């Protein structure tokens, strides 16, 4: 994976100023929170406690990227879409059901199996990480 870009400054002084102002609003609002508890009616409600991301980092942190295990997630597409054209041509009708439909339904079961496998792999990996 490529190293993180250096931090960028896009927010200009005006934006930072409004942000400061907003922080002040947020602090004042938190103080009013007790009051908010008292107003039970929806129409009298107090509004946002958090309105703007306050913990704005100097630059956005690491993006998700793709892992090798993510290739598994492509398999349902191959089953349901990659083979759709082939399935459409199959004349066999298992139990009298049209094959293209049976193929898509089997694809759902297949996708669930793949996702369950992926979930187990993720859990095992996390358990191993925690143990380490």
């Amino acid at each position: 994976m490529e190293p993180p870009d250096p931090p960028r400054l896009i927010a200009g002084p005006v934006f930072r100023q409004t942000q400061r102002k907003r922080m002040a609003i947020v602090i004042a609002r938190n103080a009013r929170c007790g009051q908010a508890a008292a107003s039970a009616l929806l129409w009298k409600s107090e509004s946002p406690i958090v309105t703007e991301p306050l913990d704005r980092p100097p630059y956005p942190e690491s993006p998700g990227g793709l892992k090798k295990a993510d290739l598994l997630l492509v398999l349902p597409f191959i089953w349901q879409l990659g083979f759709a054209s082939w399935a459409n041509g199959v004349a066999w009708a298992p139990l009298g059901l049209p094959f293209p439909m049976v193929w898509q339904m089997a694809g759902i079961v297949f996708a669930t199996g793949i996702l369950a496998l992926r979930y187990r792999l993720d859990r095992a990996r996390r358990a191993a990480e925690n143990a380490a």
Partner: protein
Amino acid sequence: MILTIILLIVGGTVAGSMLYGRRRQQAARNMEEWALGGRKLGTLVFWFLNAGEIYTTFAVLGISGFAWAYGAPAYLAFCSVSLAAAVGYWLTPLIHAYGRRHGLVTQADFFAHRYQAPWLGICVAVAGLVALVVYVQIQVTALTLVVRLAAGPAVSQEAAAFVSVVSMLLFVFLAGLRSAAFAAGVKDVLMLIVVIVLAWTVAGLVGEASVLDVFHGVAQRFPEATRFPGLKPALGLDVTWLVTSAINVALGTYIFPHMFQLCYSAGSGDTIRRNAVLQPIYSLSYFFIILLGFAALLAGTAAPGGDPNALLLAFVGQRYPAWVLGLLAGTASLLALVPGSVLLLTCGSIFGRNVLRPLFPAMDDRRELLASRLAMIGFAAIALYLTLGASGSLVEVGLSAYAAIGMLAPGVYCAFLLRRTQPWAILAGLVTGYAILWVPALTAAAAALFVHWEIGLVALLANALVAVSLTLLIPARATPLRAS
């Protein structure tokens, strides 16, 4: 009798929602609480809410009508959930983690924060609102069908649509997101009952021995219905259409602002992953929806005005006792009301937070909340206007909503895949995509170039191509200055 059952179901659900909501929602009623359900929905509630999103009118009324009118193209339903879950398994935990870390509430917050560009947040908010309103239109269309069914043909289309929008707004104001979770639970249980009752008896009612014989009968009498391109080959709903539409739906599902917001409100990343594993299985029950459409085809049911959206209600009305129709109509109301209210809530919070607030930073909070609630009424009115002008199938309207929201997809995927993506590259992609969708000459050119493709996917690919190539070709400005 039908009206009584509908009112009982809807009234009971609203009352239950309010009780449940009151019990759960203790103190602070602030905007975040109201719109996000306090960020602490457990697996069960989250699952119901999420599944409820998928069990929409698009799926039930739309797909049954689509199967009846076009045949095989209705199989698209089987791809819509599983493939979206495969994408969601990777994408949604990332959205969740990012949103949690930075205390984000809406999708536009995400764009503004990730790309460090408040103006992009405003653009995204407006783009999201457009797609959401189209989605609300689906719910209004369905609710209008139910209102017309209950009130009789004496009530005009316009009046029925108006009543639908007003009841949807009432539903929103009587219940916040937390109560929508309760209503979604009621709706899912009722939907299950309705589907079991209908599917159990449908074969006998159309003169077939078993469910399998219904499909066999269709294959005998309407052989073209069981495979692509279906009953109306001239429409071009072939395998290419299926593949491109399914990809567009899969990429767009979690880009809808309300789904995005739902990712923030999940209890943990693990909750959403587990949810993604469980969700596709739900979609196997589209089998019964397609069964009903095919049964109506065999029975020679004619939908009023040839409107495929009205098919299921018409079929049940003609072949079943009144109480079944009442149950279906009541459930269909919830089917439209629950997602409709979530969608309108999302519209309101996006408008207040990401359009009004950046434009009028000095605005008082109370006024912002009031404005966002008034805005919901405005959005409902736009959806009403769109409903009156529209004539397409719910599936077509649904696909156009996906096409509109797909324009935000490159921005979301790039956020996690391509670190140096610039906000103006995202904007350029957005403009390109919308041009293909909305400039008739460009749409025609794209349709001629990509025969039978879902136009939304063509626009999405063009959008992504522009955004990514601008990012890669033009070097990032070297301004490593720090804010401090």
